[in-house]
């Protein structure tokens, strides 16, 4: 791979990581300051997706569709000791995405999904930092 192409992946990874952190921060503000759970859920899900983009680009992959991101995540879970848990926590983030559209979660279910989505983001950002 040419150095310029590799540099493109690296630069994308950096941008995605920054977005992941910013979206998470903004999601927290929406929830705590504005009590806007639906909007916060949508943004936390986007943070989770940006995490996948960041780690994938570190590995010279640039997944496009969400299905492609999930495929990339499957590969990542084979490389970490807590792979199944990471995937389950992603599925909680996915649930927040559904909730943002349908408003279907009660407070206990929302809190659980929120906490596990945060755990997904924490783990992915740690993977990113480890490999940076």
């Amino acid at each position: 791979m040419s150095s310029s192409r590799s540099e493109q992946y690296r630069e994308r990874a950096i941008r995605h990581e920054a977005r992941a952190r910013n979206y998470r921060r903004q999601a927290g503000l929406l929830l705590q300051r504005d009590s806007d759970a639906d909007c916060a859920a949508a943004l936390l899900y986007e943070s989770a997706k940006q995490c996948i983009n960041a780690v994938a680009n570190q590995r010279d992959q640039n997944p496009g569709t969400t299905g492609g991101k999930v495929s990339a995540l499957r590969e990542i879970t084979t490389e970490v000791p807590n792979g199944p848990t990471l995937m389950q926590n992603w599925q909680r983030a996915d649930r927040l995405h559904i909730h943002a559209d349908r408003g279907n979660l009660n407070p206990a279910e929302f809190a659980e999904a929120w906490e596990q989505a945060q755990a997904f983001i924490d783990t992915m950002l740690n993977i990113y930092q480890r490999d940076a």
Partner: protein
Amino acid sequence: MSAPAMGMTPLEYVDASKREREVGNHRKAAGLMWQATQATFIALADAHGVELGSVDEGDLIDLARGLEADGSVPKWRYRGGLAPGSLLKDHAEMGVLESYQLELAYETAEQFIKECLHEL
């Protein structure tokens, strides 16, 4: 120790789900996989001597938290295991999952169920 009664064992629900998937009844299949998850948590409650009031998701979340509280299992061992089943519940009720999400949810739900039953 009483626990909510369900009609089939966890693995019977898993097999029933697979049969429905094979004929394309994904919302029914998803519902059956959620029931398999519920039945698994009933078995976990019974094995740990914990009374389970209902198989509503809130009670299962509380059970999972309780089972993890003493640190005898890794964090998210049971709370994470609820995740694919609850996504499938969403699909059964609202038809919200894409095919790649369904495939992943069935896979991870079945993996969790079989691992739990193997432990018991």
